[in-house]
């Protein structure tokens, strides 16, 4: 299940909903991305005062659905949820939620890790950071590509 929305989400409620009534679920894993106040690895730079997430309505939902289908094909998941916010967010705000539920912990953990890695390189979202010094578009990180690439190895799972 995927959702792209402006509103915040309730992590505990979403996790409970994914396992409720399914006697096969033994492990539920969640990842929550949060807006940090600090610029990536730059101690001298000004603090982030806000973040605006732009997305490509239509393609975003489509790409997230494909990423979810890929995770379900690779791991025996009982349930799977990706919620990604757009619009203006402030430090401390939640940006993204990934939840995976499986009979076994390894499947839930690996699938959650896979989903957030793939989402970071394939889902059309763009961050614009505001600081006291002005606003700028966030540049993509090489680390995100390599994190996603490790799932390309056919023997990964």
């Amino acid at each position: 299940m995927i959702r792209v929305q402006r509103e915040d989400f309730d992590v505990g409620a979403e996790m409970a909903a994914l396992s409720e009534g399914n006697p096969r679920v033994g492990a539920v894993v969640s990842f929550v991305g949060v807006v940090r106040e600090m610029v990536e690895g730059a101690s001298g730079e000004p603090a982030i005062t806000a973040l605006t997430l732009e997305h490509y309505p239509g393609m975003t939902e489509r790409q997230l659905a494909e990423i979810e289908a890929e995770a379900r094909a690779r791991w025996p998941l009982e349930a799977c949820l990706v919620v990604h916010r757009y619009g203006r967010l402030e430090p401390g705000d939640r940006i993204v939620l990934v939840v995976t539920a499986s009979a076994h912990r390894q499947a839930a953990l690996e699938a959650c890790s896979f989903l957030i890695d793939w989402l970071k390189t394939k889902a059309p979202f763009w961050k614009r950071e505001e600081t006291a010094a002005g606003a700028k578009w966030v540049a993509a990180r090489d680390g995100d590509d390599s994190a996603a690439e490790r799932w390309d190895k056919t023997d990964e799972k």
Partner: protein
Amino acid sequence: MTLLYFAWLRTRIGQQSETVTLPDGVTTVGALLEWLKQRGPGYAAALEDLSVVRVAVNQDFAALDHPVADGDEVALFPPVTGG
């Protein structure tokens, strides 16, 4: 063809979307980008370094040799930074 621009490509080109009719000979993503570059200084600035430009044709990522035709929805944007 519908063209969509996102993030700094949108601000450099100065609009969010436009509808264009492809000239003869523009049948791939690569040819489309070369043609767009000629349309004005905003386009030229936005498309100066294609290593930071991603293209989607009908909402799927597409490489430079991917075919394009009138009726397609083509989006140009920087590498994604969600999550």
